[in-house]
């Protein structure tokens, strides 16, 4: 051998004893850099998170379904002018000013707190008098009902004027910017602007706010300088009002299963919106005192349209395409539900969101480097945890449980801080487990049993999925069957406890970043878990290739056998050695040590 390989005494293929080459620290650092580059590549250029976002979003939808409070839903109503209503009302598109005026007059009878009109009155219409509309708007104001009109997006973008036509009394309404954010892949629209753009501050008074922010600001105590782009949590609670007149039937459990396997879990979406809705026919029909008390009086009304070939649709991760007015209603709902702790979206530059994404990637990489074959220094350090007194361990566990309990019981804006403690303890526990957990080859009996168990879990999951989906919907099926099924498979069949523990920690980190005071939107945990698995597989393949290389080097040690010079071979030895994980050094406590090669 012309040059030995690994400084710390690693053995390769039982024969090459090395005394030079990269140390364990250098190898760990090199692997860290490689994984960081791979992560940056996958998350930014290849867009692993974009490809996996439907799965992550489906899980988020399922969690939201059972955790989203009804605060905003109870106080929001959409009044929809549908395509079919045109014929019934002997109306044509675009709807006349007189008809809009009539609808606003009808609304006034129901005494809402505020009305947002999602129709932009920009151009003068020959033969139509705008005065009835202006009068209807002013009549609402006279009744102390706040009115907001959609401004021309181009004019609102300049922040100078609302761009609306003459003849509307500006003293009776507030103009708002109805600009919609771009869609995010298959998930649809996930963010909501506070004003013109994310770069510009929304503080100047001449800057028009978007409807949700403008309407909710006073209610939740949001100052002009505090408004930032929102990550919308698309609530998917059941609306009894909507179910009373809409067709809310879903595709069925087998269709869901087929679509989930064929495309993704977002291929089948909900048919009924979360926001309470009535149509203009309900409003213009006989006056309904029950409807007034139950759904309109004191609520904020979003009056919008749903017309064929008119654009103005919003794609969401939860529902089939909805009329655009629902986007504003949902954003308003979020503001009422979360208050000042509404979820902040990703921003340009070094935002908190990007920092958390970077930390999650860093966290995943550290786990990757430490879980399967931890280097000796990590084993030494983490092995010492085993020597800690059981009393201290129990005390630590009690602190963690107390923090989780406090988070669940006490209403505090510092939930994330409390949850950080058990999360950090969890990280240490997983690393300790990784450093001390011995890997065992399964016996023939265990191998057979694992195969049988795997088949059983798959069959049970399919049956349960169909049953739960049919009874409680696809969200429950995903949350209660698919996710636990996969975890059970990984824990019992693949016996990959570290994967399960790592995933739980990533989920914990995502929860912490979601809660106050961090208040970020849901993280794409599926993408991080996928990265964890892909990188883990790549590292194993790289190590296998390294072993094959050194086996060949052992069999054919002469440089001429390789067709390169001795110095080149020496460099190659060094480079290949970088892919060796772990080492043979034992910990202080020899029992916990683990051989690598």
């Amino acid at each position, binding site marked *: 051998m012309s040059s030995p390989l690994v400084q710390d005494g690693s053995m390769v293929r039982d024969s090459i004893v090395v005394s030079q080459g990269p140390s364990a620290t250098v190898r760990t650092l090199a692997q860290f850099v490689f994984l960081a580059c791979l992560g940056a590549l996958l998350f930014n250029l290849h867009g692993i998170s974009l490809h996996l976002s439907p799965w992550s979003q489906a899980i988020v939808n399922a969690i939201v379904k059972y955790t989203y409070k009804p605060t905003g839903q109870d106080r929001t109503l959409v009044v929809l002018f549908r395509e079919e209503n045109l014929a*019934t009302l002997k109306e044509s598109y675009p709807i006349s000013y007189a008809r809009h005026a009539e609808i606003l007059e009808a609304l006034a*009878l129901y005494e809402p707190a505020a009305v947002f009109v999602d129709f932009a009155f920009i151009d003068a219409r020959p033969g139509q008098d705008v005065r009835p509309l202006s009068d209807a708007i002013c009549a609402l104001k006279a009744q102390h009902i706040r009115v907001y009109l959609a401004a021309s997006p181009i004019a609102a973008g300049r922040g100078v004027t609302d761009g609306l036509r003459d003849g509307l009394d500006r003293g009776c309404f507030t103009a708002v910017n109805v600009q919609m954010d771009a869609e995010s892949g298959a998930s649809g629209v996930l963010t909501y602007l506070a004003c013109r753009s994310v770069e510009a501050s929304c503080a100047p008074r001449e800057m028009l706010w978007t409807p949700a922010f403008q309407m909710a600001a006073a209610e939740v105590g949001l100052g002009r300088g505090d408004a930032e782009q929102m990550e919308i949590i698309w609530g998917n609670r059941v609306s009894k009002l909507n179910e009373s007149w*809409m*067709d809310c039937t879903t595709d069925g459990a087998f269709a869901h299963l087929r679509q989930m396997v064929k495309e993704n879990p977002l291929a089948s979406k909900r048919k009924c919106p979360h926001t309470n809705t009535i149509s203009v*026919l309900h409003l*213009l029909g*006989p*006056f309904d005192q029950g409807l007034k008390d139950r759904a309109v009086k004191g609520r904020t009304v979003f009056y919008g349209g749903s017309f064929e*070939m008119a654009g103005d649709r919003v794609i969401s991760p939860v529902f*089939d395409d909805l009329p655009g007015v629902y986007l504003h209603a949902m954003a308003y709902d979020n503001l009422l539900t979360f208050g000042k702790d509404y979820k902040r979206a990703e921003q340009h530059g070094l935002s908190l969101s990007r920092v958390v994404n970077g930390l999650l990637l860093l966290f995943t990489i550290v786990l990757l480097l430490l879980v399967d074959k931890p280097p000796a220094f990590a084993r030494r350090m983490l092995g010492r945890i085993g020597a800690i007194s059981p009393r201290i361990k129990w005390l630590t566990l009690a602190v963690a449980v107390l923090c989780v309990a406090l988070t669940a019981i006490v209403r505090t804006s510092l939930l994330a801080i409390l949850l950080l403690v058990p999360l950090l303890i969890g990280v240490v526990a997983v690393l300790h487990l990784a450093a001390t957990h011995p890997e065992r080859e399964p016996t023939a009996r265990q191998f057979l049993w694992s195969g049988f168990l795997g088949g059983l879990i798959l069959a049970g999951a399919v049956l349960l999925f169909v049953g739960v989906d049919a009874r409680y919907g696809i969200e429950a099926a995903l949350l209660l069957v698919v996710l636990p099924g996969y975890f059970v498979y990984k824990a019992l069949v693949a016996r990959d406890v570290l994967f399960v523990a790592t995933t739980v920690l990533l989920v914990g980190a995502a929860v912490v970043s979601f809660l106050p005071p961090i208040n970020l939107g849901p993280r794409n945990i599926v993408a991080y878990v996928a990265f964890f698995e892909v990188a883990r597989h790549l590292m194993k393949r790289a190590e296998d290739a390294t072993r094959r290389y050194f086996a060949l080097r052992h069999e054919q040690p002469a440089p001429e056998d390789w067709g390169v010079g001795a110095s080149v071979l020496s460099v190659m030895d060094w480079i290949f050695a970088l892919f060796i994980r772990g080492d043979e050094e034992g910990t202080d406590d020899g029992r916990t040590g683990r051989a690598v090669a």
Partner: protein
Amino acid sequence: MGGPGVRWREAIVVALLLTATGAAWAEEAFNVIGLRMSKVTVYKDCNMDKGIPFTREDLDKRKPWRATRDSSTAVYYWVKMDDGNYCVKAFAVETDKPVPVVKDEECHTRVAGRPLKTGAVRGVGEGCSQ
């Protein structure tokens, strides 16, 4: 406990009764006793271009002002004036007895859905030949 045949007969009878009730209501008159707003618009022959304002004073002169339902929609009531039939928006008037809606016109509506993708918007090409 009846068999399927008995249930079918019951269903048919109930349906007939409901239809008959609806038809009877469409014909049955009631009176408009007040306006919910100071001024409403009534439309001659339900033509939206032929709207005329109608005030509480006008109503006082006509009381009792008989009205009938529109058989096709719950949005309008039909009323008679000197020169013919007019329709008035149901929400805008008070009646002497509740006027039930036989069936919500919006029943089983789909609000969320995936509209067909088109390469045009409303009005493209309209009036180009003029």
